[in-house]
C-alpha cells in the first residue's frame, strides 16, 4: 500500500489585487514564489504581489524532473548552486512542509575516456569549492546502482561515473505549495489567473503592470517568467539575448522501487529518477527548434527511451504514462553572464538554461543578489565538450 501524501490544512488566501504594491513579481513559478518569499522573509518587504497568468506553478515548476544538485563546473556559479542545495535540505523545517527532498545521489555516467575526463574535471572543481564529488569505477557503480547495464557489449559501455551523493530529488508540486504558503503567510498576495498584458512606464522607470485583472501599480517589477522571458521583455520594450526551446520529460506508470539514485547519461541523453510514489521520471535532450508550445518532437522521446533501455534493460516494459515539455530559456552560447545589465530600470529577470529550468530553482532570492533591482540570471556555464576525443 502506498503512503498517502499529506497536504496541510491551509495553503493560501485568494486575494483580489490591490491598486499597487512595492514589488510586483511577474510569474508564479518556483523562482517567482521563492523571490517573493525571500523578499518578505529576509528583507521585510511584505507589500509584494506575485501575478501569475495561470495557476501557481503551471509552467516549468510542474514540468521539471525534480532533480536538485550542485555539481556544476564554474567557480563563479558553484557557490550559488551549493548555497541553493544546502537550503533545500533546510526547507522542510523552515517551510514546515514535507517537500520530500531526498539526497539519494546523482550519478553522471561516462561512456568514453574523453567524457570521463570532462566529468572528472567537474569533480575536481567541485572539491576545490568544498562541494562533494566522487569518481566511481564500473565495479563501484554496480554497487551503487545495480540496474545499470555495465556490460562492455552495449553500444556505449559505461566507463565510470561521477557521483554527488548530496544531489537528489524533491517533490515539485509540494515545493510550489510550500513556497506559496510561506509567502502567503508573510503577507505576499498571490494573484492567479492574472496575465500581464503590458507595462506602464514613467520615462524609463516602470510604474506598474497592465493585467487581465486590471492595472496594478508597482514600485518595482521582477520578471520571473522563465520560458517566456523574451515575450515579457519584449512587452516591456527591451530585448534579451535568449531563445526558448522545448525540453521534454516523461513519467512512467507507478512501479515497485527499482532505482534508488539519479543516474544521468549526457552522451546518451537520458536521465531518470524514481519518484517516491513509484513512477520513473525521465528527462532528455532539448528539442532543437525554438518554441513556446509545451510539447516537443516524439523522435526525442524515442531516442531517449532507446538510451534508457540500453542502460536499464529492466525498464523494457515500463510504460510512458505522460509526457510534456517545459520551455527553457537559453542564451546563444548557453548562459555565462551573471553581472548586472542595464536593461531597464527596476526590472529583473530570472531565466535559465536547460539544467537550470529543469531543476527546482535556486532558493536564492535572499543571496547573493537579493534585490530584484539587480538583474539576475540563473545560469550554468557550458560543460566542456564531452564529445569524443576527436583525435588528429
Amino acid at each position, binding site marked *: *500500500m*502506498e503512503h498517502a501524501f499529506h*497536504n*496541510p*490544512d*491551509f495553503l*493560501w488566501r*485568494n486575494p483580489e489585487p490591490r491598486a499597487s504594491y512595492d514589488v510586483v513579481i511577474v510569474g508564479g513559478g518556483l523562482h517567482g514564489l521563492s523571490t517573493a518569499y525571500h523578499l518578505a522573509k529576509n528583507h521585510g518587504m511584505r507589500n509584494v504581489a506575485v501575478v501569475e497568468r495561470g495557476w*501557481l506553478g503551471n509552467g516549468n515548476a*510542474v514540468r521539471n524532473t525534480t532533480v536538485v544538485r550542485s555539481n556544476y563546473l564554474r*567557480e563563479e556559479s558553484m557557490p550559488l548552486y551549493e548555497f541553493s542545495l544546502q537550503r533545500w535540505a533546510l526547507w522542510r523545517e523552515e517551510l514546515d512542509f514535507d517537500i520530500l527532498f531526498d539526497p539519494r545521489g546523482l550519478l553522471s555516467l561516462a561512456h*568514453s575516456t574523453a567524457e570521463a575526463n*570532462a*566529468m572528472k*574535471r567537474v*569533480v*575536481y*572543481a567541485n572539491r*576545490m569549492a568544498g562541494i562533494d564529488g*566522487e569518481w566511481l569505477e564500473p565495479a563501484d557503480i554496480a554497487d551503487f546502482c545495480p540496474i545499470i547495464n555495465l556490460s562492455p557489449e552495449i*553500444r*556505449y559501455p559505461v566507463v565510470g561515473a561521477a557521483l554527488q551523493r548530496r544531489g537528489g530529488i524533491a517533490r515539485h*508540486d509540494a515545493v510550489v505549495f510550500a513556497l506559496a504558503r510561506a509567502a502567503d503567510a508573510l503577507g505576499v498576495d498571490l494573484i*492567479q*489567473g492574472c496575465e500581464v498584458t503590458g507595462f506602464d512606464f514613467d520615462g524609463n522607470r516602470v510604474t506598474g503592470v497592465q493585467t487581465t485583472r486590471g492595472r496594478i501599480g508597482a514600485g518595482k517589477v521582477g520578471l520571473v517568467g522563465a520560458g517566456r522571458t523574451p515575450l515579457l521583455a519584449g512587452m516591456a520594450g527591451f530585448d534579451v539575448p535568449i531563445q526558448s526551446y522545448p525540453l521534454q520529460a516523461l513519467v512512467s*506508470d*507507478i512501479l*515497485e522501487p527499482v532505482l534508488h539514485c539519479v543516474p544521468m547519461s549526457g552522451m546518451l541523453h537520458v536521465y531518470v529518477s524514481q519518484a517516491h510514489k*513509484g513512477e520513473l521520471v525521465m528527462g532528455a535532450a532539448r528539442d532543437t527548434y525554438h518554441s513556446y*508550445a509545451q510539447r516537443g518532437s*516524439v523522435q526525442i*522521446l*524515442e531516442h531517449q*527511451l*532507446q538510451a534508457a*533501455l*540500453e542502460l536499464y*534493460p*529492466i*525498464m*523494457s*516494459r*515500463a*510504460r*510512458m*504514462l*505522460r*509526457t*510534456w515539455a517545459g520551455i527553457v530559456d537559453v542564451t546563444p*552560447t*548557453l548562459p555565462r553572464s551573471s553581472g548586472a545589465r542595464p536593461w531597464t530600470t527596476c526590472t529583473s529577470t530570472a531565466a535559465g538554461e536547460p539544467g537550470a529550468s529543469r531543476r527546482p530553482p535556486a532558493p536564492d532570492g535572499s543571496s547573493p543578489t537579493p534585490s530584484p533591482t539587480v538583474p539576475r540570471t540563473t545560469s550554468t556555464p*557550458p560543460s*566542456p*565538450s564531452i*564529445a*569524443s*576525443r*576527436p*583525435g*588528429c
Partner: protein
Amino acid sequence: MKRLTNGGRIDRSRPLTFTWNGEPFTGFAGDTLASALLGAGVDVLGRSVTLDRPRGVMSAGLEEATGFAQVTSGGSSEPLVRLTGLPLYEGLSAEGLITRGKLDDHGAAARFDKRYAHCDVLVIGAGPAGLSAALAATRAGVRVILVEADVEVGGALLRDEETIAGARALDWGASVRQSLGLATNTRVLTATIASLLMDQNGVLLAQRIGAHLAAGERGLHPEQRLWHVRARTIILATGALERPIVFPDNDRPGLMLASAARAYLRRQALAPERGVIFTTNDDAYRTALAWHEAGVAVAGIVDVRPAGGGALRQRAIDAGLAVHYESEVVGTVGDERGRLQRVLVRTPTGTITLETDLLAVSGGYEPNLNLHLQLRGATRYDPSIGAAVPAATLPGQWIAGAASGQLTLADALRTGVEAAHGALAGLGRIHTVDRDLPFAADDESREDPPAPSLQVASPDGDETRSFVDLHRDATVAGVQRAVQAGVRHIEHVKRFTLVGTGVEQGRTARTNAASLTAALTGRPAADVGTSGSRPPYEPLTFHLLAGRALGERYEPRRTTALHQLHEANGAIFEVAGQWLRPSRYARVGESPRDTVVRECQAARQRVAIMDASTLGKIDVRGPDAPWFLDQLYVNVISTIPVGRARYSVMCHVDGTILDDGVVMRIAEQQFFVTTSTGHAAAVVDWMEEWLQTEWPAKRVWVTPITEQLATIAIIGPRSREVIAAVAPDVDVSRTEFPFHSVVRNVTAAGIAGSQIARVSFSGELAFEVSVPWHEAPTLWDALLVAGSPHDITPYGLDALQALRIEKGFIIVGQDTEALTTPFDVGLGGLVSQLKDCVGRRSWERPANRRDDRAQLVGFTVVDSHEVVPEGAALTRALGAPPMPIDGHVSSSCWSATLDRSLGLALVRGGRGRIGEVLHAPLLDGRALRVQLVEPVHYDPKGERRHG
C-alpha cells in the same frame, strides 16, 4: 456475475485456460481477461492504493480505473495491463496488482516494431460514427486508415440493440467492416490505440499483435507495433465515456458503469443475479431492459430525475420494472470480502434497501476528447450533458459522433458522414463523394434530458468513503480539504488530491472532480473547466517507443577499412564518438605506458604509422569556393597555391573555436578540407548552413568524403624513405615536396588515384596518404613492408596524444572550451588582418579581449614522474576548500621523449604566468605541483618536421 447459457459473442466451443494469482480458470474465446474473471466469479481483483479497500472491474473499456494486472507471458512480465482491453488467450497468466507494477529483467529480448504510414483520412474510432466516416471516405477513393482500440469494430454497436436501415446495427457494422476490408485504399487496424497526437496531424498508434496471442502462436510477430502516421486529415470518432456517480461506498466490487454491464451481457453473456440501475439519464435504462430481456432480475431502477415521457423509460415501465424517481443511492453494503450485497436508496418516501450483486451506474456521457486536448483544442462546457464538448476543431481535423457531444446513434451516423465530407472537401475530393450513404438509424425515439453531474452527499456527513478517483483513492473529503486550504484551480485540486494521476489519468474522475470543485467554491462548472490532458492517451511501453534501435542498432558502430588488421595487430580500441579507434597496439607483457613509450619512440626516432581514416574529409569546390572558405576560416585560404596546404581554425559567430584542420588546394576551384574526427559532421552542417541561409547564390558544393577516402599517416624521420618506396613516381624530396604540399592522382602501393600530403600533427616529418576506402589494407600492408627496415610501428591515439601534447598542438574540444577564441590558445597569429570572417566581429567584445581569460599554457610536473589526471583543477593556494581555481589540466601525458610528465592547461591569464608553480589536488588527497611553461615542449623551432 454469472455466465448465461446462451447469447453473447463468445465462442463456447473454444474454452481457454488461464491463471489468476496462480489459480487456474477457464474462459472462452471472445472474453477479455476482465470478463473471464467476472464469469469465473472472481470479482475482487486487489486492494486500493492508500486505503486498502477491495476493488473490482468497474468498466468494460478504456475508462477502467481499477482492473489492472501484472501479465506474464513468454518469460517477460508486463505491468498494469488493463484487464478490460486484454483479449483472453490460452495460457495467459496474470497477477492482480492493480495500483503498481513490477519490472523484471526478462523483457529486453522481446521484439517491438515500427511502421511509418501516410494517409489522406485517418479515422480514429470504429464505432458507428467512425465506420460511417471511413466508409464514406473509402468510397471516395482516398487512402484511409481506420483505427480501433477494441479487437473488433463496432464501438457502442457491440453493446446496443439498434437497427440501421432495417438491419441489426451490429450486422450493419459487420457489413461495413467487410466493405472496408475489401477496399484496397483502406486499412483497418484493430487492437490499436491512437495515443499521441502531434502537430501537423502526426499520430502515434500502438498496435498490440503478439501481446494478444498465446505463446505458441506468437511466432515472429512483434509484441506490439508502433505506427507513425502522418494524415492529411483526421476524423476523431473516439466516442463518449460514461461517468460514474459519486456517493458513499461507491467503490465496491459489484459496482459498474451501466454501459459496461450492458457490454458484458451482449458480448460475453455475463449478467448479475439481481441487478440495480442508478442513473441520471435514459441510456442506463437500456441496460435494465437488456437484463430484463435476457431473463435477469432487475431489482430496481434508481433515477435521480422526476418521471418523464421518454420512450426508454416508458418501455421499462411497460416491462414492469420498478423505477424509483427522484431517488438516490446513498450507500452500499458489502459482504465479508467487500463485495456488493445491497444498496441503500433514498426515495421521496423514505430510504429503502435493494438486494443486489451488481449496481450499474450512469452519471451521463461525456465526449472522449483526449487527443483533441493534447494539442489544446478548444472546448466549451455543455450544460445539457454536464461536460466539455469541442468548441472548435484543430486544423485538418473533424470530430464526429459522440465525441462531438451528440450522443445518439442517428447523430453518430450523420456526423460521421459529414466529417468525411468535410475531410474530402479539404482534400479537394468532394466531387467523388457518394451522397447516398444509407445511414439512417431507425430508432429516433425521444430521450428525456439527463440530470447534471451528480454527487450524492453522505447521509452521515462522512465523505471519506465517497470516491471521486477509484484508482488514486481520492475522495470527496479530499477535494473538500483542498478547497478549504485555498485551492481553487482544478489543476491544484488534482495535485492536492492526486485525482487523475493514476494509470487511466482520471478518465472517469475528472469531470466529477471539476463539478465538485465548482459546487464547493460556488462557481459555475463552466468556469472551473477540467484538468489538461497530457499525452499519451494510453500508456506506451518504453520498449515500443524504443523499437529495435537497441544494442548494435542503437547507433552505427563505425570502423575503418583497417579495423580487422588492427584487431589482428593487438589493438586496444576506444570509443571516439561513433568510431572505434585503436588506443595502442599492445604487445604481450607490455604495460600500457610501455606501449605508448615504444610507439612514441618509433615516431620520434624512426617511423610510425597510424590509421587516420576517421579524420573528417570534405571536398569543397566551385567558383566561389575560395571566397567561401575565406569567410569561414580565420586565415586566408584563397591565396593557397594549388598543391599546397594551410592549417587553420574556424569560429562560431561569437568568435569561439568551432574546429581546426588543414585545408589543401587541389585545383583552382577545389579544396580538400580536413576536420577533427569529432567535428566532421558539424563542419559540413556549418558549411551548408551558411551556404543555404546566407549565401544561396554562391556557387559552392560541399561534399563529405570521410568514408570515401581512407587515410594513413606515416610519421617520423624515416617516413620520407617509406613514402618514396611505395610511391616511386612521386618526388618527395625536401625541395620538391615541402611541408604542406599535396599531390593527387598519384600511384601509391600500386593504387592509382592516391593522394599524398605532407602534414604533421606530431612535429615530425610526416605524410598522409589517402586512397579509396577499400584499398586501405593494400596500402597499409605495403607501408609495413616498405617500413620494415626501419621497424615501422603502428601507433594509436595514446601515442598520438603524447606526440601532439609535446608539440603543444591542441585538440579542439579538449584543449578548448565553449568560450575559447583562437587568441586564447595562441593561434592569434593565424588570424588574417586583411579580411573578415565568421566570428571576427565578436573578438572586438571587451570580454573577449580581457587578459585574465583562460589561456593555453604548457606545464611540467615538478619533482615527480606522475602524470596529472586530465581535468584536474589548478590552484595557486593549496589549502582547505574553498580554494581559488586558476585553471585546469586539459591534456596530460608521460613524455618519453623529454623524460618527464607534462601537459597543456587552460589557466586564467596563463600567458602572463609562465614560470609560476601551481598545485593540482588529486582525488586521493595528495597534490602535485606543476610549473607553467610555454605550450611547445619539444622542438620549439619546428625543425623536425622537415626531416
